[in-house]
């Protein structure tokens, strides 16, 4: 039942001097919801483009359903890729886009598409170029869901969708996935919003995979310890520290390891406070840490903003 449906081996993609993908190895199995996370420019879209045969790898191999997707109808007809800014023919109405999708995807469910269009309050008979940004995203989300393709990629499908519409998307995704299990790869910046939907998480940073683990394993794999700086540092001596913040004599330190019950009891005795680290915080810490972090300085605010927003 859980056969491998995506296999990437030593994938490399160069754009002039930029290493968009730097030796990516990945193996994904069927019927799970994957999160593909990382900052802007980390290589998420490049990876999805290569897997769906919309871009060529510089070297390496990408197999989908056991074969290369390039000009391979047997593979492509089983894949649905919803891009962040999906383009449609100029004069199309949403209903034309849905009819085209119905021709291409053998599992297309028109009733489901109609219900979704109603949920998202999408005008079906308006020219697509007259739609708002959010309505345009809704067209993509509806196609991605109603196509019920065996392998569906959503590349940040929520641009312009408000919080209510995004929640609608997540709810419909979980409901429909439960009834029709398939492989979903969801790329998103809004990690807190999608974290609970994911079964497995792949984090890509500067073209490399830096995390590839089940969401449940990641949950609780890091912890933030805070209290008097002296005690925190003594307690954490020798541990793998991801992040350290101080405020006067207080310190708040995030470590990349789980604490056992004995450690927890000890922390309690010392009067230290332990707090969980969300997937989003962990991804932020991991993609900020390490050498070369200054390379993407112009984009450092992306995640910081999301985090701030999430805290409000």
């Amino acid at each position, binding site marked *: 039942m859980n056969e491998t449906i995506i296999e990437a081996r030593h994938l490399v993609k160069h754009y002039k001097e930029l290493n968009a993908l730097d030796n990516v190895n990945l193996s994904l199995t069927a019927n*799970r*919801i994957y999160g593909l996370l990382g900052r802007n420019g980390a290589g998420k879209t490049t990876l999805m483009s290569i897997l769906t045969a919309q871009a060529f790898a510089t070297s390496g191999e990408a197999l989908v359903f056991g074969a290369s997707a390039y000009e391979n109808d047997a593979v492509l007809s089983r894949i649905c890729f919803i891009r962040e800014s999906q383009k449609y023919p100029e004069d199309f109405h949403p209903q034309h886009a849905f009819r085209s999708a119905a021709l291409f995807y053998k599992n297309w469910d028109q009733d489901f598409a109609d219900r979704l269009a109603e949920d998202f309050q999408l005008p079906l008979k308006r020219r697509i170029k007259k739609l708002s940004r959010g309505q345009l995203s809704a067209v993509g989300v509806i196609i991605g869901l109603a196509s019920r393709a065996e392998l569906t990629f959503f590349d940040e499908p929520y641009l312009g969708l408000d919080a209510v519409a995004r929640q609608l998307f*997540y*709810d419909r995704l*979980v*409901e429909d*996935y*439960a*009834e029709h*299990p398939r492989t979903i790869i969801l790329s998103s910046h809004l990690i807190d919003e999608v974290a*609970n*939907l*994911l*079964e497995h998480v792949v984090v890509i940073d500067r073209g490399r995979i830096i995390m590839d683990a089940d*969401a*449940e*394993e990641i*949950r*609780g794999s890091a912890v933030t310890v805070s209290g008097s700086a002296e005690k925190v540092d003594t307690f954490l001596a020798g541990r793998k520290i991801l992040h350290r913040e101080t405020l006067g004599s207080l310190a708040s330190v995030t470590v990349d390891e789980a604490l056992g*019950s004995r450690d927890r*009891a000890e922390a*309690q*005795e010392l*009067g230290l406070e332990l707090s*969980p*680290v*969300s*997937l989003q915080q962990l991804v932020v810490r991991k993609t900020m840490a390490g050498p070369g972090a200054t390379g993407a300085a112009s984009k450092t605010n992306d995640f910081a903003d999301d985090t701030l927003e999430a805290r409000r």
Partner: protein
Amino acid sequence: MIDDSKPIFMQIAELIENGIVDGTMAEESQVPSTNEFAAFHRINPATAAKGVNVLVDSGILYKRRGIGMFVATGARAQLIARRTEEFVEQYVKPLAVEARKLGISAEQLNTMIERNSGLAPETGTDKERSAAL
């Protein structure tokens, strides 16, 4: 409801256990399906299934083929026994740590508990609890 402190499947299992302990989920009654749990808590259905399966493995829930999941007879007593064992670690020790920090004596602490807990002074009359202990 669901937070980041521990794996979601454990939290789902605990939520069901809470329902059994406080009596909202009676023994031999049907519990919601994993898909219903997933939709309600907005979590991955595989994760919800894992939480339910933890309880099936420990005999709290059992499966009726083609119908669904049910609360086993004796599940409540079993859970109460286990939670009573965990009570000291989870509640009493943290309480003691904070009391020590504030310089509260054991006597003062006892008085506070008696005044604020709403518990009957003689806990030994609770049949299930004394069975558990």
